[in-house]
Each structure stands twice: as structure tokens, then as C-alpha cells.
């Protein structure tokens, strides 16, 4: 069970307090209506799935309830850093 640092609580807590929430830094387009079907399809379905550094979202569901971002290595399963939603990509 992973230990995850919540950047809002500033505490390292057990994974069972958290919920995974998919790839990070995929902002909802400002004007979806202006997008082509293909661009919209990419936004909806296509994800990076990298081998290595993965930017992803977690929610501290059973803690502060906040969504935040993290960089986790998909090979070693180790977190490099977690940071608040809205902060620039690390």
C-alpha cells in the first residue's frame, strides 16, 4: 500500500485514504463546441500511458477531499512529487 503525500494536508498518508483520478493536466477545453470531432475524441479518450514518469491526479477522498496532481514512475511505482491542482506541470 503506497504512501502518498497530500499537498493540501502536507502529510504522508496511506493509499487507502486516496482515490486515483486519471491522467493530470488534461484541461476541459474552453469552447468544446468549436472543436473538431477528432480533437474532442483525443480530449475524451486518448491518454499518454507512459512507461516512466506519469502525471496523474489523486483525490484525498477520506481526508481533505481535495484533488491534486502527482508525478509517479510507472516502472518503479514511486512518487516523485505531488503538488496542488492548478500548479504548473512538474
Amino acid at each position, binding site marked *: *500500500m*503506497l*504512501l502518498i503525500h497530500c499537498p493540501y494536508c502536507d502529510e504522508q498518508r*496511506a*493509499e487507502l485514504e486516496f*482515490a486515483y*483520478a486519471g491522467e493530470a493536466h488534461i*484541461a*476541459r477545453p474552453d*469552447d*468544446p*463546441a468549436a*472543436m473538431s*470531432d477528432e480533437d*474532442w*475524441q483525443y480530449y*475524451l479518450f486518448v491518454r499518454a500511458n507512459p512507461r516512466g514518469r506519469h502525471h496523474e*491526479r489523486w*483525490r484525498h*477522498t477520506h481526508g481533505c*477531499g*481535495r*484533488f491534486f496532481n502527482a508525478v509517479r514512475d510507472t516502472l*518503479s*511505482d514511486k512518487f516523485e512529487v505531488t503538488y496542488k*491542482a*492548478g500548479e504548473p506541470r512538474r
Partner: protein
Amino acid sequence: MSGFRLPQCGRIDRSRPVSFSFDGTVYQGYAGDTLASALLANGVMLLGRSFKYHRPRGVLGAGSEEPNALVSVTRGPGRFTPNLRATGVEIYGGLTASSQNRWPSLKTDLGAINDRLGMFLPAGFYNKTFMWPRSFWERLYEPAIRRMAGLGEAPTEIDPDHYGATYAHCDLLIVGAGPAGIDAALEASATSKRVILIDEQDEPGGGALADPALWPWLEESLKDLAAAPNITVLSRTTAFGYYHDNFIGAVERLTDHLPHPAAGLREKLWRIRAGEVILAQGAIERPLVFAGNDVPGVMLASAARTFLHRYGVAVGKRVALMAAHDSGWLDIFALARAGVAVAGIIDVRESVAAPLLTEAEQLGLTIHLGHSVIDVHGRLAVKGVTIARNNGAAAARLACDALLMAGGWTPSVHLWSHSKGSLAWRDELGAYVPDRANEQTRCVGACSGKWNFGSGLVLDALPTPRDPARIKAFVDFQNDVTARDIRLAVREGFKSIEHIKRYTTTGMATDQGKTSNLNGLQIASTALGLPVVDIGLTTFRPPYTPQTFGALAGHAKDALFQPTRKTTIDGWAEENGAVFELVAQWRRARYFPKAGEDMHAAVNRECRAVRASVGIFDASTLGKIEVVGPDAAEFLNRMYTNPWKALEPGRCRYGLLLKEDGFITDDGVSARLAPDRFHLTTTTGGAARVLNMMEDYLQTEWPDLNVWLTSTTEQWAVIALQGPLARKLLEPLVSGIDLSEQAFPHMAIREGTICGVPTRLFRVSFTGELGFEINVPAAYGRALWERLMADGAAYDITPYGTETMHVLRAEKGFIIVGQDTDGTVTPYDAGLDWAVGKKKPDFVGKRSLARPDIAAAGRKQLVGLLTDDPADVLEEGAQIVADPAQAIPMTMLGHVTSSYWSETLGRSIAFALVAGGQGRLGETLHIPMPDKVVTAKVSGMVFYDPAGARLNV
């Protein structure tokens, strides 16, 4: 009789004799014995039958590596445990154990015919042979094979034992209380670290328990550890898995070693988070590979030494040693010094270290260097061995009743591998040792490859002049895999050890190849002509040894498997005979049968009452979210398909929620209480999901919106009062609210009091009748319910459950998200075009509704279905076809999503998802069932009061 108890040595308590039974025979041992040591002391060498060939098997090892001596233990009704290693079962008065995989008895096992047919049962035999005809596999081949091949029987009764669980945190966790682990703990005892030292055996000491010279040190060390306030020692505790971030799972066995019935928990699961982990798991001796290496009486040399020094048991009266490693010499010296006759030392090496030769000569032992055992005589027990020079010449026979194998050592890297630490091959050890750590962990002692047992020769199998294709030299004892099987796999083209393992099943038994993996690798390496490192390494995975389901489940079973959520009115429903169903985690009243009624009769009566007078329904489980803030209307406008900004305070609206992909995910009626405050409702099962989704958008997409979301599901009790007499019943109880149609129309909300309690009163209807949903603070739910029941008696008030609610809503064409939709249904598919705000520039899912596949013709759409025979009630889930005469497999147009007997209409009604359904109105479709084909006509979904005349009254 081959084994016996020695007069003095051992750590057993000879003042406490213990009686136990094995296969119905009563034996005597001493406190401190394991089942294996006590049986050996009684001369019992035969403990089980092997998995595939039903070969007679004895004890190979003395600890958790034991692959052969698996037994079943019965501790009374429901307390049956199969596949326990006899070397780890502590005896107690009344222990009842039995052997496995034999019939009719251990000595006469008819399954042993497999051993004679062994030539015809090579690797992959079952897959190759029982291929045809295919249909015979499930019915004939597999059951027959399962009867023949196997381990212990699965328990058949419910386990009455209790299992505990705990979390623990420490700075340092040490796994293994052998000399290396104890040294690490002693070192840490001088620090302020919180330390846990765990060991799987009944007493700490590990290898030191088999070395009397270390006993004074051991006793002193354990005293020091006991006195250290920062050290916790857990015995009979197996660390079975090493997980992320130094999280270790361990099971402590509390009462299995005590006479039953024993008080307290059987086992306790420890979830330990450690700052640092020190692995001191030791090493396991390797068997040697030669013909007959599995005959009872052939065992690991180190095991014989353990039986001698720890249990005071000689494993034979005349013992021979087959060695490829120095350590075996030390073991046989120990036996010789204890007075056990030695038939000879056979060593495959041409020369060994001079001190060993000197000591052997002093003890008067015969030495055969450059020799190997090429055959073992005896079937149920060793009677002798044939040895030959390594070049095949000069065979000789030695009489003995036990043969020790010393094939070198394998570091126990199990937990290290769980932690994803890397391994490095060491040629001189013929083994992998820990290399780079992936967690805060290190290995000490023998499991790191450091030991003082001398050196040895690494080899795949002993040389033999016999045809290797005609002998059974076992590699994996538990799964009955021979060297021949592995060579065959290589000949058939398998090159990776991962494939060889799966094809031959070597290393795949319950012992995960503790004694077999490296021999298997060496044989594959020789057969392939490749170095071991080039053919890969299989990965150890948890658990280190098999654990009980009970320990892992703990109390999370039966009623405690998951929470049962109950409303404040649930108690009344229970007292009044409700039949319940689970909806998400909620327990909901399904119907309220009166004496003699079945569900059908009860639901019909409840339906009639709602339509004719008034029904009362506990709707408290509805998800509720309070949405507050200056941007609340803007937020809802973006989330839901409908427009919300123009909704006036005091009014309600049906909200439809899509995911960004355009498919319906939830719905519910919500009310605007004030310009900046909404009372949302969601489906019972969707409450948490919807709140999570809304939080996600609010926090991450639109953090500029000033809105607060609060779950209020459990704050409100909700009582639905539905039926033409609902207003009459309610009116006298309510103050501050004008209930008239003009002042309080359908789809409105008012705040006031009811029976003196504050209420949010909704005028809504999920039944098509005049209806109210009364929200009161949850604590008042039952009191209000009882008052309404009492006052409602004059109006024939009838409590109804979810089943009636379902029928009534279906009569009105209302869908249930999750029943009539399945995550692939858009608002257009569901006929809910009216709920989509087409003028809104954007909402969640809007862009997806214009995707080509969603706009395309022929999608499955929700429609009504009316069977031609009104008495036919369709089965939910039944498939729908256009032409029942077409060939199988038929083209299926869709399926029935909801289907009921409508008492109101005197006929069946149904909803279905049908391809192009909305264009098929009036068309006849067919629903093939096992006994007949039902025909039905496609209709609209509103079957009752389409104009809503009964609502707006």
C-alpha cells in the same frame, strides 16, 4: 522402523509427553515436537502421497520449505485445515492429523498406478492427451484428473473461528529471528527506534536452534531483547508479503498449537508500516537431483541436523550422506557424534577440504569421493542406495535407512523480491543474491549470501550411468516434476524459464519452489546450453507461505462484510414485516406483505392503494447534496443538461446528468430554495459518485466559481406521500405552507413546519399521483412516519416498498438510471430530448451529443413494449429479435430493461432498449424464451395518464 528418539539431546520437554493421532493411530511425542519430528521419533517415515504420481513421500526438510509432508488437521467441527506442512504443525494433546491424496490408505494407494504409467505422463501430458473431443474436457477428463491429482480436500463447513487484525508502525522491522536477525535487534536495542522482530517458528533462534553451541548465546540474547522496552518480538508470525513503501503483511498464529477448544482469536493479521526493514530470512538447503531422491528417508542434511539437535530425533539408524557441499559433512558429523551409525559419506567432488577428511577419519566414517548415488532402494522407506563412480564405473550398494542430501544453499530472497529488489547471480553459490534495494531495506545473514557452511560444487543433477530418460529424479517434489520433464520442455522448444515453469509446473506448487527453483534453472541451463542468467528468473510473489482466508478476511464477512445503511424508518419497516432488498449499501423495504400474501399480491394491493387513496414510502435513501454560493446556479447550469439559471426560488426541476462522453450517469429532482441555495437529489446508488464528479469539476475545471457542495443524504429523512388523498392527510399537520394547487403547484418546494418540526416540503411525484416528499431532520423521520400512519388510517394509508415504486413509475414512463440505462444511453436514446437545454452554449457532455456515432441512426433507444398476450410478463434482460425463425445466432435488436405486471392497467408493461426503437412504434417484435417465443408491440413509454390529469389537482 527407521527413526527413533535419542536419549538426551533436543529442546523438547521430556517431562511433558503429548498424545496425538495420525491417520487414526495414536502416537506419543513431547511438548516442543512438531508433527514431523514426533512421527519420525515413532519411526513413521511415510507421511503422504505425491500430487501426480501418488509416490510415497516422507519428510524432506524441517521447516517452511517442506514440499512433501503435507497433512490435514481437524480441530473440531468446521475447523479443518488441509495442506499444512507437518514440519510446522506443533503437537498438542489430542491433535488429530491425517495424510492426503491417497485411497484407500496411505500405505496402499490405488492412485499409485500413475507412478507405473509415469513413462506415459510427461510434462504437458494432460494438455496433449485430453484434447478431443472438446466437450469431454469439462464433464469427464477434468473431474477424473482432479480426483487423481491433488492436495488436501477443501473444507466444507463454515469456519467458526475468529480472526483479528491490527495495524502497527515501527522504525525498524526485522524479519527472521535467527542469529543475523537477533544480532540486528540487539544492535537496535541500544537506540530509541521502535523495533518489531518477527519469526515464523514457535521459538526464536532460527538456525541457532539446531546448534547447541549457540544456545547459551541465544538464551542471553533473548533475555536482553525481552528486557529492551523498544523491542517487540512476535513468534509464530509469518511475514507473508512485502508491499509498497515498507508495508509488510504478517499473520500471527495464536491458538492452533493449543488443545482445542482454545479461547481467543485463531490468527491475527498484522499490517506493519516500517521505516526500515531488515530481512534475515536465512537460506534453504537444496536437494540433489538423482533417481529415487524422493523415497521416504531421503532428506536434506540440514533437516536431519535440526531433527537431531532441536527435537532429539535420529532420522535413521544407519544414515548415509550424499553431498556436493561441505555443510552436509558437518551435519553427518553431528549425527555420528550423537551415536547414529553412518553408512558412508558419498561426495560427488573428487576432493574436499582436508579438515573434513581428518574429522571423518577420526569419527571412523567411510568416504566415497567422486561418487554419486545412482539409485535408492525401498519404496515406502529407504533400504539402501547404489553408488557409482562419477564415470559410471564400480557400482556398489550400501545398506542404510536414511539418506541425507547436501546440495548447497539458496538464499531466501522471497520478501526481497516482493519489494522489487534486484538480484545478482553468484556462480560460486549457484544462486541469486540480493543486489539493489528498491525500498528502505537490506538483507543480513544467510539470505544475503553470507554463510559459514563452507563451499560446494554447483551442478544440475548427479552424474549417472543410467538412461536419464528412464529415471525419475525429482526437481519439484510437490508438483512431481522430474529433471526429465524439464529436459523434454526444452526439447519441445521452450527457452524461457517463465515458459518452462508453466509447461512443466515446476515451482508452481504451494511452496513456490523453495527447494526446487534453482535446480530447475540449472537443468534448463544445461539443456539449453546457456548460462543461467540468460534464461531468466521467475519472480516470487506473496504469500511466502500459504495463509488462511480467515486471517486475510478477518471480521469482514457476513453482516460485517460491508456496512448496511439503514434509514431512521428502517426499524418500523422491520417491525411491520417488510421484505428488504439491498440497493447500493442501503437496506430498503421492498414490499410489506400481509398474512398470506406473496410479493405479487402485496405489490398489487400497494399499487391499488396509491392510485385510489394514499401510499407512504420511505425515500430517505435518495442522495442529497446542498449546493450553496453565489455561483450555484451557474455551476448547476454547467453540470446538468437542463437550464437552471431561470429557475425561480420555490420551484423544482428534473435534472439529467451526463458524463463528458454524453451518456446518462444520474438524474433527480432538485429544488431552488434561494437564489444561492439548491437542494439536489440524486439516485440512491449514485450519491457518492455524483458528489465526487461535481467536486472534480468545481475544484479542477472551474475553481473560479464560488460554490460549496455538502452531502446531506443522511441529514434528511424523506417520506413520500402519494395518492389522491395525500393533501387531505397532510394539510392538518403542516403550518406555514398553503398546500392548495394554486399556492403550491406540482414541482414546487416550500419550507415550513410539520408537527412542529422544520420541513422542506417538495410537491413531486414519482408515481403519477398527487404527491409530496416530506424532508425532515433525520432524527424525526420515524416519529413523523408513525404520526402519518396513525392519522392516515382514516384514508386507508398503505405503506409501500421499492417494488411498488418501480411499477408505479414504469406506468408513468419514468426511467431508473442504471436499470433502463447502462452507461451507453444518451438523453436522445432515452427519449429525454425535452430535458436537454439546446440553447445552452455548453454543459458537461453537450459536445459529445454531436459526435458522429451518437447522432447516427440505428442506435438502441428506450421504448415501451406491450405483449400481445397481456398476461405475459417479460423477463428483464430477455433479448429481442425481429424474426424468431432466423438461424442461430440471431441478430439481437436489444433487450428488456424493466418489466412488471401493472395492476392499474390489468396487463403487463415493459421498457426495452431496441435498435432504432423510436422509429418502430407499432411494430411487432419477438422475445425468444426457453419455452416459447413472446410477441410484443413497440409502444410509447407512458402507459398511464399521459396528460398528467391526476398530477395537477
